[in-house]
């Protein structure tokens, strides 16, 4: 099992519903976020091109945050999802410094927090909150090892990219281009 997510940059309108859904679903403290929307503006007026990306933890196959964690609090759970055990985390910040995507943040309670791919929903057969709520249906989630999952099908059909693969992280968050 290998969970992955694909975001269609051609369908995303940058409404930030995914961000709000995540904050609500996961009780993300005020002022913080586990996912965010990036707008890339390319060219000069009037020849402008915009790419919109809903970003979050890449649940890397070669996760630097898991490697540098001194206690094993950061670990890889089922389906390759990268999680933090709050009662093992000492809040040293090494994983935050090690993440090239800046996807982690120190929770006000002291431990480090991040996107979980809504593992609590996924275990019950639901989609992550951000995917479920997206009004343009631009996000796909599923198991890459299952050829019939939403994410496998869309990645077969469309061209895609990952973010800074040259960092050697083997990201599992795909952007359809």
């Amino acid at each position: 099992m290998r969970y992955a997510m694909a975001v269609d940059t051609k369908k995303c309108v940058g409404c930030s519903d995914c961000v709000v859904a995540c904050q609500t679903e996961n009780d993300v403290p005020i002022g913080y976020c586990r996912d965010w929307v990036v707008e890339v503006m390319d060219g000069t007026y009037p020849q402008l091109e915009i790419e919109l990306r809903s970003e979050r933890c890449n649940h890397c196959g070669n996760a630097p945050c898991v490697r540098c964690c001194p206690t094993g609090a950061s670990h890889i759970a089922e389906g390759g999802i990268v999680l933090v055990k709050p009662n093992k985390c000492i809040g040293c910040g090494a994983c935050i410094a090690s993440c090239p995507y800046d996807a982690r943040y120190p929770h006000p309670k002291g431990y480090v927090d991040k996107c979980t791919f809504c593992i609590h929903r996924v275990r019950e057969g639901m989609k992550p909150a951000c995917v479920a709520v997206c009004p343009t249906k631009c996000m796909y989630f599923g198991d890459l090892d299952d050829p019939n999952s939403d994410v496998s099908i869309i990645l077969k059909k469309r061209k895609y990219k990952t973010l800074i693969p040259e960092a050697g992280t083997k990201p599992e968050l795909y952007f359809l281009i």
Partner: protein
Amino acid sequence: MNEELIISGRENMMVDPHLHIWHWPIPLYLFLGGLAAGILFFAALFYLMGKENEYRTAVRRIPFIAPVALIVGLAALFFDLRHKAFFWQLYTAIRLESPMSWGAWTLLVITTASVIWCALHIREFFPGWDWRYRWLINLESFFNKYKKVLAWVILIYAVITGIYTGILLSAFNARPLWNTSVLGPLFLASGLSAGAASIVLGSKDKKERLLFTRIDLIILGVELFLIVHMFMGFLASTQVQIEAAELFLGGGYTMVFWIFVVFLGIILPASLDLMELRGYHIPAVIPGLLVLFGSLMFRFVFVFAGQVSRWLY
């Protein structure tokens, strides 16, 4: 034009607008750890060379700084943790992939060993010292018997501690400025020079002072070489590392790095050391304090600038 913006708003504290998760306690600890490593390295080395009486300050007196520096450094590390009540989780695992994990265990060994080393030399400062309890006296004679083993342990762990302070940073590929393997030897050299400088500062013996002035001069030369080497590596590397080097080559950290670290911390004290060795009388306190200051600034500049360097946006 290519412009990337987070339009949903992301202001995660200590992460945005750029990473600043590690504040002053980390560079302070890196300096104190390096200083202790340098001091203990010379103490153990000169003891093992059988020059305990010749270089008395280096072997018997200056090491008293080490446990103090290590304990203050550990306190700074603890202070920097955000989930303090769980700090003991560090000692429930040995994770070889994580420099911080084996660093934590190394610190445990070197701190204990340095306290024992000082206890063995306590009569240097309190000639009439009495351990009072039988078991403490037995413990003292036990460690006196195996002092050579203890010195070897200290020597090896001092080198590991010195290098580890650099590897801790160089293991982060996400921060291009830190991601260079030169950082380990460079931090070790910086720690050794700080150690040698404190011996020069503390010694009243002319021969000892001259020897450690010479050692300091050599290490400062090595440091300078490693810094040049580091920039050569950066500038011949990928775009992110070129940009990281530019923080020091015209960017926001240029002045503080070249003035405080390179000129005041390396070139000026090295020149003063050279003049001292040529027979001019230079008050030892000036190059000594400059080296310590440069070593401290080096850690601060590197920890802060490294957090600004990044891959994205």
